[in-house]
């Protein structure tokens, strides 16, 4: 069947779901809610009770608020088992519509991928399928078309986006159960999915940019989903962001990068005269372009990617974006949207690699490498499970950029994107299950949870092994080639092994902090299998953990398979490069992965990280005091706890530079703009005061003015005709 030509169905399905929920089930739900609240007025446990009530209930419950650890996220996700009630029927119907639409979309996306894998049509392989939607406008000989292009890269992204989105939709039924904004959540989730699919399907910059901004918008909406949550109670050191502020921060920080992105697009457009990716990436186009302009343009485009993919120095929004519901973090801030920057660079890879100067990819690589290490170090000391994962995401995105920068094609980075999407989504969904079970996201209040929620623990362990680069897991097959390629890159670039050093150290840190998170959450002392499977005694919290429902654990189990096995797609590079690189069969693939000395170093490093985490947190043989006891260690710890003071630095910049400029603008506004406005007002008033004297009420005066005017016109006509001979 011709799936590729019908790829437009994929974004159309969630769009239809969104419209159905928005105009169909949500109004019905609200009507039903009004009816219910009319019947059970005063009953706080009705399905329709408002959101503030649930927040105060959670705060009032002694088990939670007495600890001072209550969080707004927890008060919604964890606390609703006591006071949230069931999901209303129509809201549930809406979410089922969303899930069904996503399942269908996923199957179409898989069909597209399979068609690309099996096709013999060389034209399709080389150029993909162009799907024309409509002409936006025509301008001279320039066509601004809204069109999709499906090629191998898009096909991979489609499967990732629809797959993760489908599972997140399903998971959210359990996670968001009873939330007052349940329907709104699914609307926004569907909106995000549509936007992300438009982004990856776009055949030109215009369509991509529409998707790019729409995902930013839906990210804003979803991070600020609990916009009426109470601010963080004083005394908490988790540094939980206030959702509306976090949403704004995410939106504005990303916009900073988009500024460069837009300029980059325009430079590219003015240099080449086209927005179309196919045309841009063809040598026929870019060989005629000034290389300096092209390099600048590519670096500016990368600015957009820096913002969207939360790379240094615009990474600050992603940890705060964890204020959103955890499924959102899994979908948007781990698997898909933040990967859009990587996708963008990969999409323009020929421009970066062949057309622009080497500086552009060097910028990509060094920003990525530095960010990977930078974020990994911060992740070492986080106590919030979601924060660990957020910094881990930033770090892994850095890996992807390194992969793009050092690789001979875009397969390395995209392969890591592909595997990362699964195991990071799994990690986030697993952490969501933990938060849902406990009502807190503070890892110091966890421990030994493997006994209570074994499915979550097992799947989380799979993902942790994968991200740590443990052999035979997906992350190993995608991350180790990047590290190896970074070494080769150093060799070919005059022995500059900076990128290799950054990535290998990051690999160690990644293994360490991920297993630290695992042990703190699920494992711990006294547990089975040397602490990997924690005991009840290791549990440090008070709330009784309750296991997740099937809608929540089923996505975890499903995701565990790609998280473990996605790395065995041996001919990924061959597929993505349209056959430019040779296909590899699976045994050669595994053999080559282990025959390399560099790979062995990588494995050793990863195992060392795991071992250190095990020593410190698994069996607790090595107390953290060893590192933080001395003044230097203490200083570093404080530095990391404060995230290198980046937020404070930005706060200072905003306080003094931005607000200073704002004050100047206010002065300008007050004295120049207002001066002009008020001045014109005064002028009109003066003119009115002067001219009202003529309004004497003397009709004969008016008549005289009329005929005097006629006379003047007559005289002017005479003058024009008689003297000027007009």
């Amino acid at each position, binding site marked *: 069947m011709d799936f590729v030509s019908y790829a437009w169905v994929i974004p159309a399905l969630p769009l239809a779901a969104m419209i159905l929920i928005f105009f169909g089930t949500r109004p019905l739900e609200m009507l039903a809610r009004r009816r219910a609240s009319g019947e059970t007025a005063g009953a706080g446990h009705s399905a329709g009770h408002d959101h503030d009530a649930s927040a105060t209930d959670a705060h009032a419950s002694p088990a939670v608020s007495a600890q001072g650890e209550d969080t707004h996220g927890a008060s919604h996700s964890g606390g609703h088992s006591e006071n949230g009630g069931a999901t209303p029927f129509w809201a549930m119907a809406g979410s089922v519509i969303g899930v069904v639409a996503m399942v269908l979309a996923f199957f179409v996306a898989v069909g597209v991928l399979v068609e690309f894998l099996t096709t013999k049509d060389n034209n399709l392989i080389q150029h993909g399928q162009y799907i024309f939607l409509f002409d936006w406008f025509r301008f001279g000989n320039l066509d601004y078309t809204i069109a999709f292009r499906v090629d191998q890269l898009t096909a991979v992204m489609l499967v990732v986006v629809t797959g993760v989105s489908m599972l997140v939709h399903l998971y959210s039924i359990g996670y968001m159960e009873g939330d007052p904004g349940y329907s709104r959540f699914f609307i926004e989730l569907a909106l995000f999915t549509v936007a992300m699919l438009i982004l990856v399907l776009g055949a030109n910059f215009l369509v991509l940019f529409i998707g790019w901004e729409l995902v930013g918008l839906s990210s804003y909406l979803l991070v600020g989903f609990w916009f009426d949550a109470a601010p963080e109670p004083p005394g908490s050191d988790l540094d939980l962001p206030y959702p509306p502020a976090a949403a704004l921060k995410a939106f504005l920080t990303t916009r900073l990068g988009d500024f460069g992105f837009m300029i980059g697009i325009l430079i590219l457009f003015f240099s080449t005269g086209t927005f179309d990716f196919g045309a841009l990436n063809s040598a026929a186009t870019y060989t005629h372009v000034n290389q300096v302009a092209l390099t600048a343009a590519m670096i500016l485009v990368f600015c957009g990617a820096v913002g969207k993919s939360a790379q240094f120095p615009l990474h600050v929004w992603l940890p705060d974006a964890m204020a959103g519901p955890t499924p959102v973090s899994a979908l948007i801030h781990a698997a898909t949207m933040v990967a859009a920057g990587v996708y963008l660079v990969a999409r323009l890879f020929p421009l970066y690699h062949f057309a622009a100067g080497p500086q552009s990819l060097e910028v990509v690589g060094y920003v990525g490498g530095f960010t990977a290490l930078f974020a990994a170090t911060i992740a070492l000391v986080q106590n919030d499970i979601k924060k660990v994962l957020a910094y881990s995401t930033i770090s892994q995105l850095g890996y992807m950029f390194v992969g793009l920068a050092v690789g001979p094609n875009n397969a390395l980075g995209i392969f890591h994107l592909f595997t990362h999407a699964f195991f990071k989504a799994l990690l986030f969904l697993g952490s969501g299950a933990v938060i849902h079970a406990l009502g807190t996201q503070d890892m110091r209040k966890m421990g030994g949870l493997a006994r209570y929620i074994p499915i979550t623990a097992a799947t989380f362990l799979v993902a942790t092994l994968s991200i740590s680069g443990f052999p035979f897991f997906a992350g190993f097959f995608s991350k180790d080639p990047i590290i190896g390629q970074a070494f080769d890159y150093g060799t070919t670039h005059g022995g500059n092994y900076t990128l290799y050093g950054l990535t290998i150290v990051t690999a160690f840190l990644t293994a360490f902090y991920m297993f630290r998170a695992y042990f703190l959450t699920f494992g711990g002392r006294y547990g089975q299998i040397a602490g990997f499977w924690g005991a009840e005694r290791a549990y440090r919290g008070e709330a009784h953990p309750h296991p997740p429902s099937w809608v929540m654990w089923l996505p975890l189990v499903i995701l565990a398979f790609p998280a473990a096995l996605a790395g065995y797609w041996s001919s990924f590079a061959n597929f993505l490069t349209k056959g430019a690189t040779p296909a590899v069969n699976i045994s050669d693939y595994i053999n080559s992965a282990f025959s390399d000395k560099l790979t062995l170093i990588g494995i050793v490093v990863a195992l060392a990280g795991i071992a250190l985490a095990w020593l410190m947190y698994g069996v607790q043989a090595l107390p953290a005091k060893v590192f933080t006891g001395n003044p230097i260690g203490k200083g570093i710890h404080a530095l990391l706890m404060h995230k290198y003071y980046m937020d404070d630095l930005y706060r200072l910049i905003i306080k003094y530079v931005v607000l200073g400029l704002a004050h100047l603008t206010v002065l300008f506004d007050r004295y120049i703009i207002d001066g002009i406005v008020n001045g014109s007002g005064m002028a009109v008033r003066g003119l009115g005061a002067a001219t009202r004297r003529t309004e004497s009420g003397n009709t*004969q*005066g008016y008549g*005289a003015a009329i*005929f*005097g005017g*006629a*006379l003047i016109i*007559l*005289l002017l006509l*005479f003058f024009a005709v008689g003297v000027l001979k007009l």
Partner: protein
Amino acid sequence: MSLDIPTIAFYLIAIVLVGSALAVVLLRNIVHSALFLAVMFGAAAGAYVLLNAEFIAIVQVLIYAGAVTILVLFAIMLTRNAQSQSSNPFAKQWWLALIICVLLGFGLVYAVGNSAMAVASAFAPVHLATLGADSGTVTRLGQLLYSPFVYSYVLPFEIASVVLLVAIIGAIVIGRED
């Protein structure tokens, strides 16, 4: 300049017209003004006769010289102010009005003398010689005003009757004592 009867008649009528108009404007007694207005209306009727517009002339006599003059006299009678010495004074800015009117008059006369229409009038003199010979214009005028079959001004004519009705009612409403 040949002094045939129509020419003499024209100048006589013109002198009476201008003279009575000036009298209307300049006289200090409003009743005298009103009487000269009647004279002026009659002279205008004469001018229409000279122009072969008998119907207009008769209408002029009936409506203007008859009805409007009586109306004006009624109004004067009803608004008589015993205290004022002059019943028809000038306003303060009469000199300004004079300047405007004189200049406008010169301008109009100059324009009439130099316009394309004046050139047209050179080959189309008013045929005053046919004075009283043919009065067919009344029939034609009647057809033009309210023929239902040929092109006519029947709709404006009907509207004009509505205007008159409105004016009658309006005058009664405004003028009645309340």
